[in-house]
C-alpha cells in the first residue's frame, strides 16, 4: 500500500512542474504585456514604458524571469498582482471561499438529487420512471449552461422576481467576512434577513453549476447500481428474504457507490471550468471571474499563480480519489 501511495504521489511532481512551466510561458505568448494593456490607446513615451517594464522586471530575459518565479513558488511566494498590488495568494484566498461555497452547494445539489434519481431509475429499470430520469439527465448533460443561466434569470428573476440577478448579498446588508463563506458569515452576523438574502443569491448559480454534475451522478449511479443488482450476492440477499429496501439500500448501494464517488471526485475539474461561466454570468466574486478578468489585463502574476493554484487543487483531488480507490479496490493498487 505504501508503495502504491508513493508511486502514485510521485507522478504529481512532474505534472506540477509542467503546469508551472506551461502557465508561465502560455500567458507570455498572449500579445501585449500588462503595461501596454493598461496604457491602452492613450499612448506612452518609450522611456516611461521601459522604466515601468524595468520596475516589474519584465525587461529581463524570459528564462531569468522563469527561474526567479520557480524559486519564488518553491518558497511559497506567488508574487504581487500588477494591477492591484496585492499579493496573489491573498487575493486568491479572499475570493476562493466564494467559489468553494458555490461549488460545494452545486455538488450537494447534484448528489442529493442525482443519487436517489439514479437508484430509482435502476430499480425501476425499463419503466417510464427510468426513461424519464435518463431523458432528463441526458438533457441536463447536454445543456449549454450559460444559456440555462439566462433562462433561469428570465423566469425567476425577471418574470417572477424571486431571486436577484447578480452578486452574493443584497447591498442593504454589510456582513463582516469571518470565514468568507457568505452563508456562515450571515448567520454569525446580527443582521436580520441577511441569511435569507445570501440564500436567494446562491440558488440560481447553484442550480446552473450543479446541472451537469447532477446528470453525471444520476447516470453513473444508475449504471453502477444496475451492475451491482445483477451480482450473485444480491440474489442471495433476496433469497434470504431481506426486504427490497434493505437489499437496495444496504447491500447494493454501498457497493455501487465506489465508482460514483470516483466520478464525483473527477467532477471537481468540471465544476471549476463551469464556475468560470457561472461566475461571469452572475457577477459572482470568485476565482473564475477573477482569472478571466486577469487575462484581459495581462496580469501575469495573478494568472500564473491562479492557474497554478487551481491546477494543484485539481491534481490534489484526483490524487486523493486515486488513493481512495486504490484503498478500496486491491486490484488497482497491485496492478501495473
Amino acid at each position: 500500500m505504501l508503495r502504491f501511495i508513493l508511486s502514485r504521489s510521485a507522478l504529481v511532481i512532474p505534472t506540477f512542474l509542467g503546469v508551472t512551466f506551461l502557465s508561465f510561458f502560455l500567458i507570455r505568448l498572449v500579445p501585449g504585456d500588462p503595461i501596454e494593456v493598461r496604457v491602452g490607446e492613450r499612448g506612452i513615451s518609450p522611456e516611461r514604458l521601459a522604466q515601468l517594464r524595468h520596475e516589474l522586471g519584465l525587461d529581463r530575459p524570459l528564462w531569468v524571469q522563469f527561474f526567479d518565479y520557480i524559486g519564488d513558488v518553491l518558497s511559497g511566494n506567488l508574487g504581487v498582482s500588477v494591477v492591484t498590488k496585492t499579493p496573489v495568494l491573498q487575493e486568491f484566498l479572499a475570493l476562493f471561499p466564494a467559489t468553494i461555497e458555490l461549488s460545494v452547494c452545486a455538488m450537494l445539489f447534484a448528489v442529493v438529487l442525482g443519487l436517489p434519481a439514479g437508484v430509482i431509475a435502476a430499480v425501476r429499470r425499463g419503466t417510464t420512471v427510468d426513461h424519464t430520469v435518463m431523458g432528463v439527465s441526458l438533457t441536463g448533460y447536454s445543456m449549454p449552461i450559460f444559456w440555462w443561466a439566462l433562462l433561469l434569470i428570465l423566469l425567476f428573476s425577471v418574470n417572477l422576481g424571486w431571486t436577484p440577478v447578480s452578486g452574493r448579498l443584497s447591498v442593504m446588508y454589510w456582513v463582516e467576512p469571518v470565514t468568507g463563506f457568505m452563508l456562515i458569515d450571515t448567520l454569525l452576523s446580527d443582521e436580520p434577513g441577511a441569511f435569507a438574502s445570501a440564500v436567494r443569491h446562491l440558488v440560481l448559480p447553484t442550480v446552473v453549476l450543479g446541472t451537469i454534475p447532477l446528470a453525471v451522478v444520476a447516470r453513473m449511479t444508475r449504471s453502477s447500481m444496475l451492475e451491482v443488482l445483477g451480482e450473485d450476492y444480491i440474489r442471495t440477499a433476496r433469497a434470504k428474504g431481506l426486504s427490497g429496501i434493505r437489499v437496495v439500500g444496504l447491500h447494493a448501494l454501498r457497493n455501487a457507490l465506489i465508482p460514483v464517488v470516483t466520478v464525483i471526485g473527477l467532477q471537481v475539474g468540471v465544476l471549476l471550468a463551469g464556475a468560470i461561466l457561472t461566475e461571469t454570468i452572475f457577477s459572482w466574486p470568485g476565482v473564475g471571474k477573477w482569472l478571466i478578468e486577469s487575462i484581459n489585463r495581462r496580469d501575469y502574476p495573478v494568472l500564473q499563480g491562479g492557474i497554478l493554484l487551481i491546477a494543484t487543487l485539481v491534481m490534489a483531488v484526483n490524487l486523493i480519489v486515486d488513493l481512495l480507490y486504490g484503498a478500496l479496490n486491491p486490484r488497482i493498487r497491485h496492478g501495473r
Partner: protein
Amino acid sequence: MAAIDTTQSADASAPESPFRVFVHHFAQNRGALAGFFVIVALVLIAIFADWIAPHSPIVQFRDNVLQPPFWAEGGSMRFPLGTDDIGRDILSRLIHGARLSLAIGTFVVTLSLAAGILLGLLAGFFRGWVDIAVMRLMDIMLALPSLLLAVVIVAILGPGLANAMAAVAIVVLPHYARLTRAAVISELTKDYVVASRVSGAGVLRLMFVTVLPNCMAPLIVQATLGFSTAILDAAALGFLGLGAQPPTPEWGTMLASAREFVQRAWWVVTFPGLAILITVLAFNLMGDGLRDALDPKLKR
C-alpha cells in the same frame, strides 16, 4: 455516415455480418435513432441553408427591430421566430448557424482525433520515455480547467472562429490520446498482433493496419460524443466574446449579444440556446446508442 462505414471494418473480426448486428442494435434504441434523424436533418439544413432560410442572416430590417415570433402579439410570418436588436431574422440566423456548428464539430473532432490517435499510438507502442513524456503532457493539460485553457489559447491566437476551434481541439485532445493508448496497450498483448509481428510486419503496419482498426470502437463513440463537447465549448467561447465575431450567426455569439435583452425580448435569448441544446442532445443520444451497439458487454 462515415462513422458507420468505419464501424464495418472495426467489427470485421466478429463472426456473422457484424454490420447488420450493429444496425439491428442501433435501430432498437429509439433515442439513438431520434438523435440520428435530428443530425441528418441538421446536415440537410446546413447544406441547403441558402434556399431554406427566408432572409439573409446578416441583412438588417431596421423597421422591424426586436419583433416577437409569429404567435406572439405583434409578430408576423415574415419573421417566424422574430428579429434581433438590429432587425435581423432570427430563424435565418439559426439556419445558417447550423452550418457553423456542424463545421466546428467536424473540424474539432477530426483534428483532435487525428492528433490524439497519433499520440496515443506512439505512447502505447513505444512505452518508455515516449509514453512518459506524452502522458505527462496530457496530465498537465487535464489538470487545467478546460475552458480556462481554451480561453488562454484564444487570447494567444486572437479571438475568432478558426482560433476558437483550434483551442477547443487542443483542449479535448488528451481524452483521445488516453483512450487510444489504453486500447493499444490491451490489443498489443493479443495473439493476432504477436502473429503479425512474428511474420515480419513493420512498426507502421502494425500500428495503422493491424492494431488501430481494432481500437476504433471506443474512439468512434468518443468522437460522436466529442461533437457535442466541441459545439458546447465553441459556443461557450462565443458567449464569452472570444469565438466567432459578429455578425457571424454562430449560436453562442448570438447569445452573447442577446444577453442585454433578457428583460425585454425573451425570443432573442431562447432560440439560439434551444438550437445548441437540440444539436448537442442529438449527438449525445447517438453517441450513447453507438456505445450500446458497439460494446459487446452490453449486448444481451
